């Protein structure tokens, strides 16, 4: 690849029908899920509008969205498969391929870039021996580069598998995070305090979240790309 070629999010059309990954008997909703589906459908004038919710549910259930999972969602809503597939492929958080047990979404967008987001990304790539977009051989980690996660004050930061945010990253923090994840420990929800709260009320204003953390200035990165 010359550097004039950039990655483009091209939807790959399978040359032949891919092999079914999820056996038929698992392609059913539990009663509990069914209840949730009905509840979501009732929220919209057109029940088909619940497709995004259903795709989220299927992804939580199967880990990713192979065609048969998308078809299940489409059938549940009495919707064309093509339309459901169109939705699943438009949004980046829907996984169209199987990913690692933990997906590390490192933000490198402009605020994070300036604070060393690429250092974190490259460190992870090096440490795990993979490139961004790839999964480790043991199926534990996938590393991805993502756009702004809306948490630029605590840059550089990342999100773990569409879940918790990890703030003010340093290489040490990455080491700890990886060790914890290997032990099956997901990082806790961390509320980032407002600087004005620190001045006026001594920091964290929420009594219901354990871990708190103030904005800190991470060591300035030299690399900005």
């Amino acid at each position, binding site marked *: 690849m010359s550097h004039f070629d950039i990655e483009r999010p091209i939807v790959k059309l399978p040359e032949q029908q891919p092999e079914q990954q999820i056996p038929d008997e698992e392609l059913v909703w539990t009663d509990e899920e069914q209840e949730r589906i009905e509840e979501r459908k009732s929220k919209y004038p*057109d029940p088909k509008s619940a497709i995004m919710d259903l795709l989220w549910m299927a992804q939580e259930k199967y880990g990713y969205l192979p065609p048969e999972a998308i078809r299940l969602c489409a059938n549940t809503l009495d919707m064309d498969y093509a339309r459901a597939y169109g*939705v699943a492929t*438009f949004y980046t958080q829907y996984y169209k391929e199987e990913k690692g047990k933990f997906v590390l979404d490192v933000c*490198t967008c*402009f*605020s994070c870039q300036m604070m060393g987001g690429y250092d974190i990304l490259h460190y992870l790539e090096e440490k795990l021996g993979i490139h961004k977009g790839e999964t480790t051989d043991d199926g534990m980690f996938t590393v991805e580069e993502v756009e702004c996660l809306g948490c*630029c004050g*605590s840059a550089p930061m990342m999100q773990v598998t569409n879940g918790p945010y990890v703030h003010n990253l340093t290489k040490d923090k990455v080491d700890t995070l990886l060790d914890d994840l290997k032990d099956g420990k997901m990082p806790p929800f961390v509320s980032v305090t407002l600087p004005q709260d620190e001045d006026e009320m001594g920091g964290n204003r*929420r009594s219901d979240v354990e871990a708190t953390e103030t904005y800190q200035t991470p060591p300035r990165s030299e690399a900005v790309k």
Partner: protein
Amino acid sequence: MELTNGATKAGDWRNYERVLLPPIRDLHKLEVYENEANGYNRLRDVLENDDWTPESVTNEVKTSNLRGRGGAGFPTGLKWSFMPEPDDRPRYLACNADESEPGTFKDRQIMEYNPHLMFEGILIAGYAMQLDACYVYIRGEYADWIRHMEAQLQKAYDKGYVGDNIMGTDFSMDIVLHKGAGAYICGEETSLMESLEGKRGYPRYKPPFPAQKGLWASPTTINNVETLAHAPLIIENGGEWFANTGAEAHPGPILYGISGHVNRPGVYEYPTGMLITDLIDEVAQGVIDDKGIKAVVPGGCSVPPLRGDGIDGVTMDSESLQEAGSMLGTGGMLILDEDTDMVSYLRRVTHFYQHESCGQCTPCREGTGWLERIVTRIDEGEGNMRDLDLLLDLCDQMEGRTICAFADAAAWPVRNTVKRFREDFEAKCKPSVHPTGADLSAAGATAA
């Protein structure tokens, strides 16, 4: 809650007392919101006091001169008055909580620390426009906050603040939280509606405008989280109070998100119209290692960056920023220190737009890709001076020629970064070579 900051102009911001995020412990909890922040009393007043009619609420918002906090700065009261007379169709509000503009992280603070203020604002807007339901479109990455808000919304439902016959009156309104799944373009209002309807987030042509034909072909208004959170405060303190806070033409309290090379980044609540230099030097406690400022991006990645040597006297409101050649956008400021290479900055910015273009319009889909390719080429030392003009030419080909404003938002930072920081780009370009083979760089030529 006693409001003492009656007529805070931006000048005395040091005495400003926060109203969107007042310093109250556990304010996100319904009981605390009710007991310590006058919670839902503004809604009660609007519903029970005969002085308030849908028209008078809208007029109060017009008096306040509140301008949308989602990026475009459109006058909110005027937008509300665009809704047609009720007919047999349902009427909707879409609350824009997509917050994907790089450098913007303010709406999340309201969602986490003061969600009921947002709900109350939604209900007041719902009364003013006589709506049936509000869909809050929250970006999928905010999964933890969506769960947090779901719990709080349920409490408001249980208390009878949301749902049927609110507070025993004949006003009914539902609030539904909708989880996105990662697409910047869904922050654009028509794309947001497509996505809410369960489709690919392709922006729609306007007209028809959302007020005529929005969600499910019904009248719809789209407002940002912060915009709606102002509504209860305007009802409580009056439109005049709001209009007299901060900058005259763009008044009110505002959440500034400050990130980049500053000692104390974060979200700060102050009046509009503050000096950029005050925000950097005093509020954010200066640039890391006391370095100089190369550039300030005042309102999210889509607005043109300002040169650090041109920010003296510039204030954070639409008028002053327009004069300086930028926009207020979302109020998410990125500060870049003197060592920043503006070419690699622009490379990352163009990558963002290339990645996020929805691909409907050729000038945008192809143009964003070319912008990234050309800036990358320059960054890698393979570009030449002609590429700089090519970039500007490409911007001409994109602006104003597409369905939505995304293409303009992609072109503005490119055009202005190349123009305002041309020396950074020239330093990375190969020397100009005249067709005869003569090296012109020594003669100071800028374009071959």
